[in-house]
């Protein structure tokens, strides 16, 4: 299938109700028709079938909730959401749904339970993310650190690592997804990228001693890096092409694609095994990631959010209120497929994400974009390609 050359973006009715206060971000559930929007000290869960409120999480945090993540391994009967707040803590919430997913505005609001608080960060938590298997949770903060947590037992979380090499607030964390190998086996490595106010992006991995180390620092940014997202495994891809790419959104208006440079063949591993040098100095733990593409500059102000779908189409939003879609042609050149000016009226658009459609009786095969803005509106966008 040739890559799309044009996208027609049409607004869907906004999710009900309006939140009437700045909303920061929206996080679709990995399998269920639910999306969690953070705003003020709360999270509103919307049903993607009815595009209206399903339930809400309130009363757990003393300051705004900036970010949220669904735990991938949570069973269908129990929903588990992690929230990252300006009050420097991460909250773990569970929802016991006794078979009633499809609820409307009238639903009672006390079904979400604030179970656990993860304490450790000194300042605002900016972003939270689960590793693909759900084994690890990463949190990052204005205190310049990234923490990795593991749920060792039900409701018992341990700190696996504290990564403190960034020199400024850590704005965003994202785990490398699992990819399908040629034999259909799923594999993934636990690899984390973090984006920072220090104008860099760092790549982190666990070394052979179980220590988390920074394997690469990317510095080609002219300002705060607000967001980073990994490429999705392409739909109907030719037998598991795994490009290991991610994309960054920056204050300077740039959106860049990064790829790991192939490791040179025949390099001896464990060369320095007997030397008493720090792990991070070992040669095999250095990786080279290079910028393999820059998207056309459309945004006039900071780019706050970037997302990538299975067709390889990228969407961005930012301080200029624009929603922009980009596609990559066969030569790897990026083109603008379509854009909406003033996607949230005169307001800034803080977040955009691809998610599956369940409205109008759909069963999740189609995709839509969901944008979240300073106007307190969360809205879907239908995208048709040509």
């Amino acid at each position, binding site marked *: 299938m040739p890559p799309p050359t044009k996208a027609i973006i049409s607004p869907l009715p906004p999710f009900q109700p309006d939140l009437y206060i*700045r909303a920061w971000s929206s996080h679709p559930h990995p399998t269920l028709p639910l999306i969690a929007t953070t705003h003020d000290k709360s999270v509103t869960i919307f049903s993607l079938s009815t595009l209206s409120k399903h339930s809400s999480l309130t009363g757990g945090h003393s*300051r*705004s909730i*900036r970010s949220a993540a669904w735990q991938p391994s949570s069973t269908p009967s129990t929903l588990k959401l992690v929230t990252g707040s*300006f009050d420097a803590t991460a909250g773990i919430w569970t929802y016991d749904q006794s078979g009633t997913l499809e609820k409307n505005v009238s639903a009672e609001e006390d079904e979400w339970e604030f179970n656990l608080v993860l304490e450790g960060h000194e*300042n*605002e938590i*900016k972003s939270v993310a689960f590793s693909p298997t759900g084994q690890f949770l990463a949190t990052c903060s*204005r205190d310049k650190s990234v923490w990795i947590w593991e749920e060792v037992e039900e409701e018992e979380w341990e700190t696996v690592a504290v990564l403190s090499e960034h020199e400024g*607030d850590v*704005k965003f964390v994202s785990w490398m997804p699992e990819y399908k190998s040629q034999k259909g086996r799923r594999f993934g490595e636990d690899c984390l990228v973090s984006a920072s*106010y220090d104008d860099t992006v760092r790549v982190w991995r666990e070394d052979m001693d179980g220590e988390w180390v920074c394997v690469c620092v990317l510095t080609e940014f002219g300002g*705060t890096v607000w967001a980073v997202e990994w490429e999705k495994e392409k739909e109907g891809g030719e037998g598991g092409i795994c490009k290991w790419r991610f994309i960054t959104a920056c*204050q300077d208006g740039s959106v860049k694609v990064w790829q790991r440079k192939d490791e040179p063949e025949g390099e001896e591993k464990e060369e320095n095994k007997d030397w008493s040098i720090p792990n991070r100095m070992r040669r095999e733990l250095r990786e080279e990631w290079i910028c393999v593409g820059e998207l056309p500059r459309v945004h*006039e*102000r*900071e780019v706050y959010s970037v997302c990538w779908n299975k067709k390889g189409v990228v969407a961005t939003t930012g*301080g*200029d*209120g*624009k929603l922009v879609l980009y596609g990559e042609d066969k030569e790897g050149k990026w083109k603008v497929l379509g854009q909406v*000016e*003033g996607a949230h*009226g*005169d*307001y*800034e658009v803080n977040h955009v994400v691809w998610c599956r459609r369940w409205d109008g009786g759909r069963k999740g095969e189609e995709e839509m974009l969901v944008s979240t803005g*300073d*106007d307190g509106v969360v809205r879907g966008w239908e995208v048709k390609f040509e």
Partner: protein
Amino acid sequence: MPEIQNENPTILNVSELPSRRSKKIVPRSGPDSTFDSVLYPKQAWLSSSSSEGEEADDDDDVAPIDEQDIFDLISPISDPEHPHTLGQLSVVRLPDIQILSSDSNHRLTTVKVDLTPTINHCSLATVIGLAVRYRLEQTLPPSWRVDVRMKDGSHAQDDQVNKQLGDKERVAAALENETLRGMLEKMLEGC
């Protein structure tokens, strides 16, 4: 309160501050309002949001927001360590306010405000900048974007302060800090 860092700043008399009103007091030979429609053309955002533009709310200015209006919004902010306003202390100066309309994006208007803190190492520069940004974001229409910076060379840690003031997330978090919030409210009392 920390020790006062600049004990002897230059203070302008209120009547010396740039003001539209003060100019109108000056006796003129011709009718006052003849050129108003030329000087202050109709407010685009106001007329599109109100029904026919003809009857804009009483307290809404019919003229477009200009640099003087921005100055009037922020110059009465009190300095956190002196009993004077930012206008009197020349922290805010009319020539350092710039309004820019985007060429390609007709929706947005950007206002750039360069501040001149009273002394070089003013640790309160961030608070002053925050107050200015907060004041403008509270009063200007949502299509306005506010960029507050320290005037080049006026402050030792320009870059840090500017970066912080330009970061929406940091500003939002700072405004949830009660101590800081109380300080800002106090500075804005005279507005």
